[in-house]
Structures are given as structure tokens and as C-alpha cells.
């Protein structure tokens, strides 16, 4: 099986918290510019790449941003206090490394607590290994954002890394737009900003594009780990076609179309009925007068940790499904 590990590895290692997606945007722009007709960056920072066609306007959205931590205070000894950008878990953060845009590395630790389950971010701090406030302020300012720092690993089956949510969606979009050849449709590949804080980039870019059909590409959870909550999505069982989450009930015709294309092309797929969470599709489908919208999900274990895990097969199947879908006259 061919899996473009090199691209995946590059994508997850680029610094790009919500609100500061500049680095990843530049990387993706460079990666795709030869494969699209137009590239635009809008005022919130969404990267909108268009492959022109005479058919229906289709908006595909994968978000570029990742969860992060913003510095709110620097104490006399140089310890940093922080607040969360997106869903940062106190427990999963304890003992993790973080990295700032300028390369400064720190570790997250906490004041002594009796019950680790009750750990709160306000009792935690980042130690960047300095001796005092002055030294800290040379490296970091209040308002600076850091992200988890962890390596990329893989075996024949899976990749694991931080921020597969949603670099793997970006990966799927990039691979798709490279492969799509014969499409009548007017395709807008949108790499959105600020999904993790409330689907904000998707909201404004969908307004601008005003598509006939919207599709978000994002990770979803999985129900295949020991004693996991019941959820009929597993790694290695194919791409996931979203039925619902907390942000959307996908348009029945859109998900039926996806399933139909998967059947026609013998692409393994599973139906995803998620009882929490949301994706850019939630914002897109409520744009203007309403837009039929669905989502293709990549089953992923340990979402919002430093070791998110997805299956290479599922990722490739997601690309296959999207390519076939876009090449269909809709």
C-alpha cells in the first residue's frame, strides 16, 4: 500500500494553533499551487483554492488549526501560566512538552494536587527552563501560543502523532486535489482556520463561497479500544461517512450519495453516528439560506492527545472516496 508518510509527517510538525495558522497555510499553499486554478486567503486567514468547473459549486473543508495554550502570565521565577485554545485536557497535558512559534520548548506541570482527576488548567504552568522573569520574557510574551510537541511515528497499519486532528484532513484534501482529474464540478478546497474554537473559519468562508454542497473532512473518534464507549466506528474498517454529531444532522442525500459512490467503487466505509463533537460541516450547513452538507471522517483514537492514531488504509480510502465523489456529476 502506498501511503504518503512524508507529507503526513511534514504536516503534523508545522506549528499552527488556532488564530495563528500562518506557517501551515504557507506550506499548503506551496504544496497545492500547481494543481489548482486560483488561490485566495480571506480576512480570517482561510486558504481557499479553486479548481474551476462548470458544474455545481462544492466546498470541501479541512481545518488547518490545532489546539494550543496561550500564555496569560509570567511569574517572577519565569513560570508561565496559560489558558486553553480549544479542547485542552488538564490530565493529558500533564508532563507533555510544548513548543512556541520561535522554537522555545517547555514542559507542562502542575501545583501539587490531591486528586489528579480534579486537576484544572489554572493550577498548571509551563516551565521553559529559565531562572527568572527577565530571562523568560526574552523568549516568550503574554499572548504567545504554544502547541504540543511530540514526534511522528508509524508502522504498516497506523500513524500516530499530535494534531492528526485535522492535519490528516488537510492531507486528504491535498492528496485529493492532486488526483482529481475529470470533474465537471466547481471545486473549492478550503483549508479553514479556528475550527477548534468554534468552526469560525468555515462559517465565513462558506458565506463567501456560497456553495451548492459542503463537505467537511475531519477526524472522528473510535469505539474499538478496551472498554470504549459504544460507538460503531473502528480503525482499519474504512472511511467514515458522518450521519450526525452535535453540530449537524448530515443531509440524507449527501450521505446517501457518499455511500453510493463508496459501493460503486468498492471503497470500504462505515457510517458514523457520533453523540458528541462537531466539525466545520456544522457551520457550513447553516450558512445563508442553508447548504446541503456532509462529512467524511477519519476514525482516530485518542483525539486531542499527543498520540492521536489513525489507520493508513482509512486515510487512503477517504481520499479514494472523495476523488470519486468529486468526479461524479452532481
Amino acid at each position, binding site marked *: 500500500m502506498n501511503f504518503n508518510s512524508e507529507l503526513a509527517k511534514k504536516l503534523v510538525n508545522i506549528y499552527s494553533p*488556532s*488564530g*495563528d495558522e500562518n506557517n501551515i497555510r504557507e506550506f499548503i499553499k506551496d504544496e497545492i499551487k500547481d494543481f489548482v486554478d486560483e488561490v485566495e486567503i*480571506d*480576512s*480570517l486567514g*482561510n486558504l481557499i483554492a479553486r479548481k474551476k468547473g462548470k458544474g455545481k459549486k462544492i466546498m470541501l473543508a479541512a481545518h488547518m488549526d490545532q489546539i494550543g495554550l*496561550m500564555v*496569560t*502570565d509570567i*511569574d517572577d521565577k519565569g513560570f508561565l*501560566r496559560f*489558558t*486553553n*485554545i480549544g479542547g485542552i485536557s488538564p490530565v493529558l497535558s500533564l508532563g507533555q512538552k510544548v513548543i512556541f512559534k520561535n522554537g522555545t520548548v517547555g514542559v507542562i506541570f502542575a501545583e501539587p494536587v490531591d486528586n489528579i482527576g480534579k486537576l484544572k488548567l*489554572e493550577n498548571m504552568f509551563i516551565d521553559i527552563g529559565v531562572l527568572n522573569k527577565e530571562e523568560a520574557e526574552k523568549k516568550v510574551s*503574554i*499572548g504567545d501560543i504554544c502547541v504540543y510537541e511530540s514526534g511522528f511515528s508509524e508502522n504498516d497499519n497506523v500513524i500516530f502523532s499530535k494534531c492528526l486532528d485535522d492535519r490528516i484532513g488537510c492531507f486528504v484534501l491535498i492528496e485529493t486535489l492532486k488526483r482529481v482529474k475529470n470533474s465537471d464540478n466547481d471545486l473549492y478546497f478550503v483549508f479553514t482556520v*479556528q475550527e477548534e*474554537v*468554534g468552526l*469560525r*473559519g468555515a*462559517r*465565513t*468562508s462558506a*458565506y*463567501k463561497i456560497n456553495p451548492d454542497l459542503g463537505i467537511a473532512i475531519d477526524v472522528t473518534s473510535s469505539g474499538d479500544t478496551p472498554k470504549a464507549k459504544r460507538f460503531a466506528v473502528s480503525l482499519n474498517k474504512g472511511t467514515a461517512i458522518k450521519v450526525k454529531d452535535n453540530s449537524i444532522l448530515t443531509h440524507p442525500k449527501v450521505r446517501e450519495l457518499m455511500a453510493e459512490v463508496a459501493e460503486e467503487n468498492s471503497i470500504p466505509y462505515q457510517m458514523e453516528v457520533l453523540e458528541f463533537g462537531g466539525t466545520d460541516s456544522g457551520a457550513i450547513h447553516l450558512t445563508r439560506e442553508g447548504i446541503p452538507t456532509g462529512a467524511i471522517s477519519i476514525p482516530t483514537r485518542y483525539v486531542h492527545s499527543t498520540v492521536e492514531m489513525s489507520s493508513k488504509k482509512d486515510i487512503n480510502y477517504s481520499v479514494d472516496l472523495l476523488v470519486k465523489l468529486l468526479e461524479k456529476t452532481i
Partner: protein
Amino acid sequence: MLLKKLTEASGVSGNEKEVRDIIIEEIKEYVDNIQVDKIGNIIAYKKGRKDSPRLMITAHMDEVGFIITGINDSGLLKFTTVGGIDHRILVSKPVKVGKKEIPGVIGAKPIHLQKKEERLKTLSLDQLYIDIGVNSKEEAEGLVSIGDYVTFYSEYVEFGNDLIKAKALDNRVGCNLLIDLLKSNTDLSFYAVFTVMEEVGLVGAGPAAYTVEPEISIILEGTLCSDDLDTEEHLIPTKLKQGPAISLLDRTTLFNIDFRKYIVNIAEKNGIPYQFRKTSFGGNDSGKIHQAKSGSTTATISVPCRYIHSPISVMAKEDYKNTYKLLKFILSEIEKGDF
């Protein structure tokens, strides 16, 4: 004194007319165009020598308060809150009810009659009532109706070392800043928007931004300040007398980093003290504004106010002055066209 007039006026969310009328009266000589939109926002345009970019400066007119929900047989009024109010601050507060501004007080069972367990708990809204000093339901009905708005009654007072105590500094202080900006000479054209119903979910800001379609917006606020001794340093959102508070993020917006740095640079270059609003709690009109239509850039600059959402919010005059100065410098920098 404009801030006295603004803070003593009633303007609970959805009932901003009194405040709106004062503002229109104040600004009409100084703007080129003024309209009140369908939801009640004031959208004013001041033309300068230079037009671009499309700049909008906003402040919300509304304040937290109450609505009458019932009148009982003895003429006592039941009520509910509008916007976020800490129920623990309600007992024994004077209020004004309805358009006729009937004076009343929020009453409750006296401490002598409370059972021990009642004393240990916050009284719920069900246990509180507004007493307007009448003897019967009929008498009350002659003065007030269900649905009447109620505001805290609180006079504007200057005290201490140049501090001000008033109700509704959140956000009449923002309104006052925006009015002063309109009155001053500026060469840059801008939209001045006074919004409604911010306190109940940023309701007015969305439609206003939809109409104006700004490229850049500055949201003016009176923001939370908790600089007491018991709060740990890193949990203090803002401090009094440390200058205008520039927002990093809140529940509704991650403020544009480049614009924030641009503002910080202007403050530093001109020797204006400033601080960051160091908490992600709360939200303001920016949340709706920056996501309207195809999106835009926003910043929030606030005057720190202690005890907001109560009848006795407190601010420092020097923070007002420094915020105003900073805004003037920002306008003249934007006019030069380097953002």
C-alpha cells in the same frame, strides 16, 4: 457630566431607548449620517478626509437588569434577571420599575425569620421580590405591568483617588468613549455603532456588522477587573489604573494577533500604559462581528471596571483618559494607512 447621564439612564437589554436617545442627541451634530436599524442599533457614519479601510468602532448600549414576571396579592412583584447577575448581590438593592420609574427595593425574609439552613444558602429568585410600597395587587397594577423592565437604582459618585462608582459602567463607559471620539476631530472616516442586547447573547452586533460590512472593528468595553488581594496574580484579568486592557482572547473571539501587536506598538511608541485582558472568560460583540459575512479583523479595548454586573461598578478616571488617548493614536495611525 456625560458619564453620569449615561450611567443613570435605564437601558436593560431590549429596552435601550432612553440610552439611545441620549446618545443620538449627543452625537447628531458630529456625524454625517445616522440611522437606527430595525433591531435598535445606532449606526452612525462620520466622514473624514480619508475613507479606507472600512473601520467600525462599537460599544453596546445595554446593561443587565430585570423584568417583572408577576404581581402577588399583596402587591409584591416577582421578577427574573436579564443578563448575567450574581443572585447573591440582589437582596436589599434599590431599583426603578418600568417607564414611570417607580422606586422599589428588592426584599427578602429578614435574617431573624430565616431557618439556619436558609442562612447558609443564597436566596433564590423565588424567595425575592420587589417591594414598591403598595398594599394590594390592584394598587400595584395601577403602577406597573408584567413585562416591565427594572434597573438598579444607583447614583454616579466620584470617590477615593479619582475613582467613579456607578451602575452600568459595562458598557456606558464604552459608549462615552465612542461619543467622545465622534466629537473630536478626526481625519479618518469611520462607522460608530452603538449596539443593543449584548448582555443576552451579542444580539445586536451581528445585524450591525451585516449592514456595515467592516474590514476592521474596534470593540469598546468596560471589562471585568478583579485586582483584590485574594486573587492569585495569574488569575487577575485586569487591574485598575494600569491602563486600557487589550483583549487576547475570550469565549467568542481569538483576537487577530497582528492587529493586537499593532495596537500594543502604538501604545508603547506613545508612552500610554496598557495591559492585557488576561482571561479567556466572557465574550463580547466581537464574536458576532468578526464572523459576519465573509469575516473581518477585530480588536477589543476595555476600561477595567470592578464589580461589573452589579449596581456599584467602579472605574478609574485615568484609565478612561488613557484609553481615549490610545484610541486617538490608533485612528491617526490607521489614517496613515499602515495597517
